[in-house]
Each structure stands twice: as C-alpha cells, then as structure tokens.
C-alpha cells in the first residue's frame, strides 16, 4: 500500500509541475496588436529624445518607422455598444537610428503586444530610399522570423507614412494596397507584386529592378508608376510613369491583361485592343565586341472598343489594318520605355543582362561590372506581332 501511495504522490508531483507551467508562451488573440503595414521614412526634422540627438550628433541617419496596428478595439464588431470606432486602424510612429530598437521603443506607447505575422506591406519613403542602401534598411525585415516573406514592398512618393493614412476611417490602408495590387492582372500600368521573398533575390544578385510607386493626394492612395532601384548602389534612381510601365510590361512579357489604345489613321478615331495573352522574348546577339538585342513580342487579343464608323469590325482588311495600328502603338510604348531606362536612367530593369548571362556567359563575365553603362549604349530592335482573335459581341 505504501508503495502505491508513494507512486501516486510522485505522479501527482509530475502532473502538478506540468500544470504549474500554466499556459507557457500563450498569448490570447485579443491581446495582440496585429501589425498589418510598416512604413519607413527619413527623419530630417527636429528630434527630442537624448537617444535620437546622440544619433544626430554622430551623423547617423534617423529613421521614422510607422506601424499600422489593427487591434480588437479598432475592429468594427469589437465595440460592444454598436458604435463604430473612429478608425479601423491605429498608426504609431517612432524615430531611431536602427530598425529593431526603434520598434522596441514603440512598446512604450502601445498597450497591445505587437505581432507581425500578418504584416502585409512595407512602404519605403522616397527620401530614405535615395539616401540609404535598401539592403541595410530592410535587413531586419529579411532577417526577422515573424515577418512573412509574402509581404509586399512599395516606394512612396514624399512621406511613406502618408500612404498608411486614408480618408475613409473604416478601411485599413494596408489591406487596401494589397487589394489594389491585384489589379495588375487587368492593366499593364501596375507592376507585378514584389514580395519580400522576391526582393531578397534581387538584392543579392545586384541587378536593378522596379518597385511599385505609391503616391498620396488628399488622403487618397494611388499607384503612380514605378521606382527604379539601381543594382549597384541599391538606392532609388528615379521614377517611371504609368505609360513607361506599359512599355516595360510588354518588354518583359508581364502583361497579363490590359488595354492598348490605337488611333485609326484615316479618321483619327480610337480603337481599343484588350490583351488576352502576351509573350515576349529577348534575344541577345554578340558579334565580336558588339552586343545587340532583339525583342520579339507576340500578342493575342480582342477589339474591345471601336469608334471608327466607316469600318466593319469583322472585315478582314479592317482587322489587318487594326493589327498594324496596335503593333505600331506597342512598339512606340516599348521604344519610349527603353529610351527612358537606357538613356535617362541608364539602368537595366527588364532583365536584358540576365538573358545575356544565360546565352553568352563569357561575354557577361567581362561586361558584368559596368553592365548598366554598357546597356545604355546597346542597340535594341523590337518586333511586334499582334493578332486579333475576337471582336466582341457586336459588329455589322
């Protein structure tokens, strides 16, 4: 009997030690502050705290980090009385000279435990992107476990924190940005999304790339072209506008959907072409020292809008004519984009270098170092083939 009692006692001790641990690392969901978006800006104004002033004297750059929190109190049904909360989100800013210490300083201001696994967007201010190397700024975000690699990256014109504000208080700007990004399948004016995971590859391969640009006007967020990040310095080089993006999309074959607007040569009336599919092929040629590229673009689509009264949509001759018009228009877009990237910014953002690396690795090894320079002088020819498959449900 004694033995049994002893055993029972020991078992009891074992269970109690287990239970005493309690709910070890549990954190209830309602006590969390979900970080859904983060913006990074360069702080140029006055600073107050000693820590920040020290950094200023040591001539270090100061960052202002704004986190967008969604907590159980800001969600609509969270307020029991049925009254809508003033805002569906809560933005908290903090300034410092490195990312993580600044984020930790936020603890002094926020009652909820911040939780970044639902982080959706990271927005970097124009000024910050053009002063500090992106690899340095984003190191924490690439390194941290809690931040998911599916987060999207944006560059904001002016203040990045502005992009996390909105006039409509019931909406969460970070989610809005993510949902707007889905439009890239229906227009060529939005870049395909750049996630943290993809960015890492771009950063380490030293190639130039584009990031979607966000601008804010009167509290309304708008996608406005793209920002060019130079591969060598990993800093912001300049901006492309929406129509340049169209050219880039055609070149890189990213156009999943979208429109091309052409004008009838005789009447000057617009004809609109909607893309069903688009393919592009960049072919490098090397003759001795001379490098050149050919871009072959093939597209199928339909006539979506047709203002030319004199022509019938299902007349083959008209279709031929229209195809010509679109081919010209697409070539014009590509030329314009090429002109800007080659001559104005002198950066290769459409992967010409990559194609050369694959086809002529030895040439690439030689030219790798000053590729952007070389790229700006390379002749590029463009061949466009458009075929119209469909003219919609009307036509006479």
């Amino acid at each position, binding site marked *: 009997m004694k033995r049994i009692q002893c055993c029972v006692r020991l078992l009891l001790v074992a269970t109690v030690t287990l239970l005493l641990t309690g709910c070890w690392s549990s954190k209830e969901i309602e006590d969390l502050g*979900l970080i859904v978006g983060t913006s990074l800006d360069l702080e140029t104004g006055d600073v107050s705290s000693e820590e920040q002033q020290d950094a200023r004297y040591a001539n270090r750059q100061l960052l202002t980090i704004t986190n967008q929190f969604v907590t159980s109190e800001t969600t609509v049904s969270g307020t029991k009385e049925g009254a809508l909360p003033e805002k569906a989100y809560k933005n908290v800013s903090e300034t410092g000279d490195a990312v993580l210490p600044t984020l930790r300083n936020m603890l002094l201001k926020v009652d909820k435990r911040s939780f970044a696994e639902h982080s959706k967007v990271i927005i970097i201010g124009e000024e910050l992107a053009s002063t500090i190397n992106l690899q340095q700024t984003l190191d924490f975000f690439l390194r941290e476990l809690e931040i*998911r690699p599916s987060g999207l990256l944006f560059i904001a014109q002016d203040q990045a924190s502005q992009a996390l504000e909105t006039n409509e208080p019931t909406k969460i700007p970070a989610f809005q940005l993510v949902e707007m990004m889905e439009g890239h399948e229906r227009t060529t004016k939005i870049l395909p999304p750049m996630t943290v995971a993809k960015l890492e590859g771009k950063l380490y391969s030293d190639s130039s790339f584009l990031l979607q640009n966000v601008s804010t006007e009167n509290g309304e967020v708008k996608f406005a072209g793209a920002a060019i990040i130079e591969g060598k310095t990993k800093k912001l080089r300049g901006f492309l506008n929406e129509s340049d993006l169209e050219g880039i999309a055609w070149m890189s074959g990213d156009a999943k959907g979208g429109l091309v607007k052409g004008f009838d040569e005789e009447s000057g009336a617009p004809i609109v072409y909607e893309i069903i599919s688009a393919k592009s092929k960049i072919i490098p040629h090397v003759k001795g020292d001379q490098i050149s590229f050919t871009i072959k673009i093939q597209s199928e689509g339909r006539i979506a809008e047709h203002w030319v009264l004199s022509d019938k949509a299902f007349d083959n001759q008209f279709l031929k004519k229209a195809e010509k018009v679109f081919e010209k228009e697409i070539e014009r877009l590509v030329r314009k984009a090429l002109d800007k990237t080659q001559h104005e910014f002198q950066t290769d953002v459409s992967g010409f270098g990559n194609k050369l690396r694959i086809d002529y690795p030895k040439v690439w090894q030689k030219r790798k170092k000053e590729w952007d320079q070389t790229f700006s002088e390379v002749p590029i020819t463009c061949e466009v083939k458009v075929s119209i498959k469909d003219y919609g449900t009307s036509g006479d």
Partner: protein
Amino acid sequence: MWEKVISYMPHWQVFLQGFLAFFIPYLIYKLFHVFLFVNKSNGKIEMKENSEQVEMVHIPIQKTLEQFTGDFNKDLLQMRKELGHNWDIHFREFQIGNTDNRAAIVFLKGLCDKELIDKHILKSLMNGHTEKSSVLRGHELQQSIRNEILPVSELLEESKVMKAVGKVLTGSTVLIVDGIQNVFIIGTAHGKTRNLEEPVSEAMVRGPRVGFTEKLSVNTSLLRQHGENRNLSIIEMEVGERTKKELVLAYIDEIVQPNLVKEVKERIETIHLDDVAESGYIEQLIEDDYLSPFSQVQSTERPDRVIAALLEGRVAILLDGTPFALIVPVTFNMLLQSPEDYYERWLSSSLIRLLRYFAAGISLFGPSLYIAFVSFHQGLIPTKLALSMMATRQGVPFPALIEALIMEVAIEILREAGLRLPKPIGPTMGIVGGLVIGEAAVQAGIVSPIMVIVVALTAISSFAIPQYNAGITLRMLRFVAMFSAALFGLYGIILFFLFLCSHLVKLKSFGVSYLSPTIPYRAGDWKDFMVRMPLKMMKHRPRLLKPKDSVRKGE
C-alpha cells in the same frame, strides 16, 4: 593530432543530456511499471480470495448429490422443503387416469406456459389410458408416460433434486410420479419477451429493421434465420456463480481460427462473478487492457452486424437477458464502420466513411486546435479570420482554455441530462439548454461566438460515429487534447497525438493489433478500411484474423 581528436569529442554537457534523456523516461517507465505490477498482483489475490469464498458458499456436497427416491411422499416433501416457501411456486397433486397412481407437478407461476400445462400435460395424464395405466407401475409406467402419454417435445428425466429445483426456477415443470425413481422435467419455459424492434442505439436508413431482444433463444434464432449455414456453431457456456446465466459463443467453424475460440472460452471461464447482469460485465472482464480508454470489444444490437463479423472470422458472445451481443476481436476501424456501408453503393459509402474519419478527427481535436490557434499560433490563421476572431473575443474575460472548458462541460451535461430526461420533456430541455448555452452565453460575454460554433461542431461530429462508446472515448480524450494544447500549443497537440498513437500501436484485442491493417501494414485489407472498395474487388476476408478459408468469393 590528439588535440584534433579531442576537438571532436562532445562537451560533458552533451553526455549529461544523453544520460538524462535515457534516464528520465526509464524512471517514468519503472514508476509506472511498478504501479501497474502492484495493481495486477492485487487483482490476482482478490480473485483467489473470491474463488475460495465461492467454494465456501457452495452448497455442501451431500446436498448436491441428493437424489429422488421414487417414494412419492418423500420426494414431494423434499421439493416442498426446497421450494415450498415461495409464493410463486405451485404444487398440483393429482392421480394419473382412473388409477390410484399419484402424481404431482411443480411449476413456477408466470414463467411457464399455463396453456401447455393445462391442455397437454394435465389433460393427457388425467384422462384416458385407463386400462393400461391401472396395470402399469414403475419402469413400465415411466416408458408409457414417455412414449405414449405426454405429447411434449422437451422431456427430460432427472434424478438429482437440486437440478430439478433449478429447472423449476427457470420455468420448466417437474412431474413427480409415484413409483418412478426419476422425475420428468417438461420444457414449459415461456418467459416474457418483447417484440423484435429496430435497435435504438444503432439506427440505419437501409438494412434490416431487426434488433436483438433480451431472450437468448430469440437472439440465436435470429442468427440462424439469416440463412442456412451448417457451419454456424452456437456453443453453450454458463456464467455467474450465484445466478447462473446462459451464454453462447457463436462462430463459423470453417472460417474461424480455432485458437481464437479457445482463447475466448478460456477468458470467459476465468470469470468468477456472483451475477453477470449485462454483457458489459463480460466485456470488461475479458478485455486485454483495462487501463486503455478504447473499447476492445464491440457491442452491437444488430444481428446483421454479428453475422458479418462471424463471416470475417470473428467470434460473437451472446448473453441471456441483454440485447447487446459482443464481437471479438476488434480493430479501431470497426468502430467507425456501419453495416450500411456495405448495403449502399461503394462510392457513396466510401465518402461517408471518410466523412466519419474526418468527424472523428474533429471531435478529438476541434477545441484543442481552436485553443492552439487562438492563444499560440495567431499567424497561422488567415488575416481576415484573425481580425474577426479578435473582434469576437474582445471582452471575453477568460483565456481560450477556460472558455472551451466551460462550453465543453456544459454541452456534456446537456447531453447526459438529455439522455435521462423523460421523453416528452427531452427535446424541450435540449432546445432551452442549447439556446441558453449558445445565445445567452455569447450575449453575456462569457464566451465568443466562434467558440460556440467549435463546440457545436465537435458535439455533432462525436455523434456521427456509429459506435456510441467510441464516441465517448473520443470525447474523453478531447479534454486531454485541450489541456495539452493549452500547455504547448500545436506542439502539445502533436505530442498528445504521438502519445495516443504509441498507446494504440501497443494495444491488442485478442491477439490482433488494434490499429491493423495500418500497423502491421496489410495492403490487402485496406480495401475495406478508410474507403469501401466495390464488392467485386473484396474477394478475401481480412487477413489479420488468419481465417481458415480466406476466399470470400470465387472468381
């Protein structure tokens, strides 16, 4: 060189960790083993004491050997001494025919067929046969009664008094005739039975609407009625020390593994119990592991289920006085199967079977997954769901574990109360309880609406399991899963699952692995496991039972 070797030697801490990793589980094993061992030996001792007591209680040997003398007065007195004090025992004395051959019948009121006694026994004995019976005496009379007078099918002769007394108590009629040494025992037992009804605990849409009753002979006849089968053996055994009860083993000679029958017989013979009230007693006394939460014997009310099991090479145990038959051995997948799976077409029944496995998963892990997600792994919830969960949990004062416990316990109470309630108020109370728990608890802010959904879902899915006791097992284990989830999150759930698996892998039911055909792996038996393949493909009986004749259906 030596230094290089040294650098590859692990630090002493590694050795310590290794030692601890071995020693702590070993210690736990030893502790548990000692505990179990002590318990087992105790059990054995008790059993021995019991059996000694039983022998002490046994009627003295002299008495058991007492025999009828053939002297009418003496024998009748003897019977009166044994039974006369009972209100429901009747003694009827008369004379055979017109002769002065005295005779008496002894019977139990209520248990025997009065019509049979009046019309066939008394009438045949008291009327007619005048000429002969006046002459006949002793042995000749005995032959005459046996061969000419009594038109009854069940007629036995008995010389021992105590046996005759026992027969009277089970409804037979004892006929004592002057001058005949033995008494006649006439099978007039006619116990009260109810009609054959559809089994309440195992309802089906398609399939025979017949369930076992409390009467053993009806139950065995149901098995016989299934179709002519010369190989169906029904073997009689007896259980109970004080109140003897009939128990039969049913199996199919040509299929069953003889060792299995032997094992079942041996286990039943070890039962030394005053009274076996229900087949549940037998189930608990013959199962392999009494500490396991899983039932290792299947109980069923359905004759078709028993027949199907017999044809797979299993053994059924039927006890008089209960409609629940036992089937051994049992595997885990049997608990999630219904006879209907074979009656419906294979596609639909396969899907339904998969659904049952899914439901079993939910009823075991539903609330614990909720706890793990809400209080540990919020990053794994889709963002929008996380937002709405956050909103609904806003203002709930308890951590997720307490919240889940409150609701789970409430629903268990509701279930238990619903079973016991008188039929007319049952549904009403169910609705009231459901409303109170679901709606009011949310309104009062004690629990979150999502928790109510989780609890309702788990409660429903635990009833989707065809075996009631398997459902209870899962419900019991659900609470353990909830605690482990509250301790370590998903990690805890996985640990619990592994713990459960290691137990199940070790568990055996009558020499058959509980988890088979998963472990040991038998690909052939998977045809009738998670899915039910077309009947055309199921040509063999399950191989795990090692049936003598493994082919179910010829080419």
